């Protein structure tokens, strides 16, 4: 026996109160006058003894009352050995796999039927629980003996598009064993896909007190073709430059020539045969896509002729728009515009269209229509342009600043206001780029800068700026600053070939391409997602309280009103196209496809399954003795409180009786 709050036992000291009242403070009998003691005899022994006996009863009641009160507040508990194992009861968990692969044939129907059959053998002392699992486990009922409720739960199971994970199932079984304090007998109703096993076998270990009974819904592997993936640009600007590549997967000893079709907005726009090797992959490429402007729903289909047509298509979304305008501001004629224009027009998707202007002209232009602005060694910036640039950046615009001699004369970086000094004035030799922040989106594909020679460069005080590249003398050459909602990239040299030879190197084009996409915020999100992935709804820049509407593939609202205004992310649970409507009218169309591991119907070998089952049985055998003696703390303070109540009533009755006797005697 123990106590959950043992410090309340200090209240036992209050027992001293009745001790003081009854023993230390001697009760004095009130003398009663009587006319004559002529007929009385002295028998003090018996009468005093009688009195003490009665008062001791009251004392005992009072002391017990206080002691039990302190006892109850200390929350006593006993280690009950009445655990389920001792009673012979088990928690029978019926785990039904409803992953994407269970859509094949009548696998899910078979699994549900098997689960119903397993439920009929539930013993009276057992409790049952129904759960479904794919990438996550969902409890459909509480541990109970309600057979009808569990049957209804099994009937309600629907297939999903998610990927099954036996690691998640094992985790759920382990958790149930811990929480229920009962031996768990898991019954798995699944197609036993090899791909459902985690990479680390230890993640699927069943743990203590868990046994697993397997009910395979499929006995053999299945020949299957599937569109494994589609690589397509998220946005297209030039229909001739569109390149779409589809990967066709063959599993289960499947192989052969299959027809692959490209479908756009429900209309087939191209097809070609693909020879898929046995248990191998083949690719089909489609060049050029005459997609209409706006959001387009793309799909790659194959005529598989296999037993699982659900994975014979793959969704992708594609958005067509005009190239984004970029404003190139320069103060004097040089080759920087030539180099920059050539580089940006050579980029992968021709997403940008360059416009040049002088500072004076730029001051008259509306900057908000440009994806970003480039300031190429601009020294004298009109006040109106400076103010417009600051407002533009704070509102979310982006600025690329190349520092040359003219710009360095201002001693401050435009908008950023970081200090500048000419660091290469007194040196005679060039510097090379020594370190490059490859984790930054603007530089992670920039290639090798080591051959680039920087003859003249300027030192910008980093301050709060993030340094993305440094020269060999540790001078920062590429820096970034977040200003308001916007971004400012500072290149501490010029874009012509005078201060450095960077434009002449192969790394210049990727550098311009990456920085342009970064500054224009074009590649923030992936083109396609898999079922079960989470979609980030808010980046923190959206106005508070603004609703983000999400429509699922069936066209229904996927979020409640509250979630639409507050949720920061949501899980994608169905395959198809999700339409996301943001408050700034930047609508998106997101294609979601099932995890293609579900298309591999290779069954787990029996040896592996036996080994998996043993991860529970072996440990259970070791724990068998301990399970019998496992003790569960049983808090029984309320019983003590009932006893306290009874004692209080008894104390009142006895006390009143004594009081009545004394009053009558008086």
């Amino acid at each position, binding site marked *: 026996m123990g106590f959950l709050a043992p410090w309340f036992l200090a209240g036992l000291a209050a027992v001293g109160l009745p001790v003081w009242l009854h023993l230390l403070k001697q009760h004095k009998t009130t003398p009663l006058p009587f*006319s004559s*003691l002529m007929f*009385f*005899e002295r*028998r*003090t022994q*018996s009468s005093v003894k009688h*009195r003490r006996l009665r008062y001791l009863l009251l004392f005992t009641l009072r002391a017990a009352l206080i002691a039990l009160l302190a006892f109850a507040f200390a929350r006593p508990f006993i280690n009950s050995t009445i655990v389920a194992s001792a009673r012979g009861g088990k928690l029978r968990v019926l785990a039904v796999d409803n992953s994407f692969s269970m859509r094949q044939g009548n696998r899910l129907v078979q699994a549900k039927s098997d689960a119903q059959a397993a439920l009929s053998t539930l013993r009276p002392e057992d409790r049952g629980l129904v759960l479904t699992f794919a990438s996550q486990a969902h409890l459909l009922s509480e541990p109970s003996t309600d057979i009808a409720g569990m049957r209804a739960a099994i009937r309600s199971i629907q297939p999903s598009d998610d990927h099954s994970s036996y690691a998640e199932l094992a985790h759920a079984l382990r958790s149930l064993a811990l929480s229920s304090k009962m031996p768990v007998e898991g019954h798995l109703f699944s197609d036993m896909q090899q791909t459902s096993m985690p990479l680390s076998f230890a993640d699927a270990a069943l743990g203590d007190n868990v046994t697993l009974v397997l009910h395979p819904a499929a006995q053999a592997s299945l020949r299957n073709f599937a569109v494994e993936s589609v690589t397509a640009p998220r946005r297209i600007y030039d229909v001739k430059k569109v390149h779409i590549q589809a990967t066709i997967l063959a599993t289960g000893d499947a192989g052969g020539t299959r027809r692959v079709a490209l479908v756009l907005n429900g209309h087939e726009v191209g097809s070609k045969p693909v020879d898929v090797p046995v248990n191998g992959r083949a690719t089909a490429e489609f060049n050029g896509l005459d997609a209409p402007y706006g959001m387009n729903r793309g799909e790659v289909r194959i005529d598989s002729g296999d037993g699982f047509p659900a994975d014979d298509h793959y969704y992708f979304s594609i958005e067509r728009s005009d190239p984004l305008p970029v404003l190139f501001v320069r103060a004097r004629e040089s080759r920087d515009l030539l180099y920059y224009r050539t580089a940006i027009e050579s980029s992968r998707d021709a997403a940008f269209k360059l416009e040049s202007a002088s500072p004076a002209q730029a001051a008259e232009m509306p900057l908000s229509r440009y994806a970003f602005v480039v300031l190429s060694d601009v020294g004298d910036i009109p006040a109106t342009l400076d103010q417009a640039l600051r407002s533009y950046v704070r509102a979310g615009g982006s600025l690329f600043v190349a520092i040359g001699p003219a710009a360095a004369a201002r001693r401050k970086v435009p908008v950023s206001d970081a200090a500048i000094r000419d660091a290469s004035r007194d040196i005679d030799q060039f510097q090379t780029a020594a370190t490059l922040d490859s984790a930054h989106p603007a530089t992670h594909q920039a290639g090798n800068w080591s051959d680039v020679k920087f003859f003249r460069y300027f030192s910008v005080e980093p301050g709060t700026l993030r340094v993305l590249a440094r020269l060999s003398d540790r001078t920062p050459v590429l820096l970034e600053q977040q200003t308001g909602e916007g971004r400012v990239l500072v290149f501490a040299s010029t874009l012509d070939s005078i201060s450095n030879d960077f434009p002449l190197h192969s790394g210049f084009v990727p550098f311009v391409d990456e920085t342009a996409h970064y500054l224009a915020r074009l590649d923030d999100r992936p083109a396609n997602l898999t079922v079960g992935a989470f979609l980030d709804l808010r980046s923190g820049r959206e106005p508070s309280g603004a609703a983000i509407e999400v429509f699922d593939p069936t066209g229904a609202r996927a979020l409640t009103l509250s979630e639409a205004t507050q949720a920061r992310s949501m899980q994608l649970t169905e395959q198809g196209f999700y339409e996301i409507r943001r408050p700034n009218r930047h609508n998106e169309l997101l294609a979601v496809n099932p995890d293609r591991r579900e298309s591999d119907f290779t069954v787990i070998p029996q040896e592996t399954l036996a080994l998996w089952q043993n991860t529970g049985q072996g440990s259970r055998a070791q724990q068998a003795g301990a399970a019998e003696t496992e003790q569960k703390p049983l808090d029984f303070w309320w019983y003590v409180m009932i006893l306290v109540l009874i004692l209080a009533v008894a104390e009142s009755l006895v006390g009143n009786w004594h009081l009545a006797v004394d009053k*009558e005697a008086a």
Partner: protein
Amino acid sequence: MLQRFLDPATLAGLSGLDLVAKTVVDGFVSGLHRSPDFGFSQEFAEYRAYTPGDDLRHVDWNVYARTERCYLKRYRGETNTQLLILLDTSASMSYGSSTVNKLDYARYVAASLCYLSHEQRDAAGLIIFDADVVNYVAPSTRQGQLFRLLHAIEKAEPGTRTDFTKPFAHFQNFLKRRGLVVVLSDFYEQPETIVKTIEPLRFRGNDVVLFHVLDPQEIAPRLRGPALFVDVETRDSIEVSPEYVKEEYPRKIEAHIEALGTRARAAGMDYFLMNTGRPLDEGLREYLAVRQGRM
């Protein structure tokens, strides 16, 4: 109907002893008290044959004229007897389990008897005693005697302990002529001692009546728990158990009452137990009925 007003507790609410006595006596007692002697009154009793020496004034000449025989005509005598009340005011008489203690009850009885005596033109006197004679009002029929008696009774306060020997020795000096002696006491003394002490009064030709005044709690005490009893006279204390009070004490007090009554009657004295829990008139009615029966 009157009975209701003769409850001791009700009488205690009355303002003065005279009113108490008048309430008790006027209700039913008046006229019941008669002299046992023949005397001069208007009420015929019997004829008796003349014997030499009889007073010729009592010869009924009308009968002699008709029968030529001399008969004496005898009338029921309403003699003026002398009543002397001995009121015990020892401390034990102050005990009472209700609003009326024994001394109050005894005072009501004494006052009633005084009033009754006054109504019959009898001389009444009073001796208040505890361990000694505390107050003495000589028997008299003078005007204002009743109020002197009532005043003395009202002034009687509980005194010390009871000692029959000493005051009764003094009583002998006060009794000049024979009469009726009424003793009101709780008689906490051995019956032999009591009778032996009072007996001389009887020898001198007095009718002696003992009114044994006891509280109901003294006759049949009730006690639910042990208690410490303190003697109001001696201040001695004793722890008493309920069992004793329930079983042994009643036997002892009964034996005491029985012994006192038996010995008193054996000595020619009347004995009446006056339970203060009973209505006042009940005790007096019983007493007067007995007295009448003896006439």
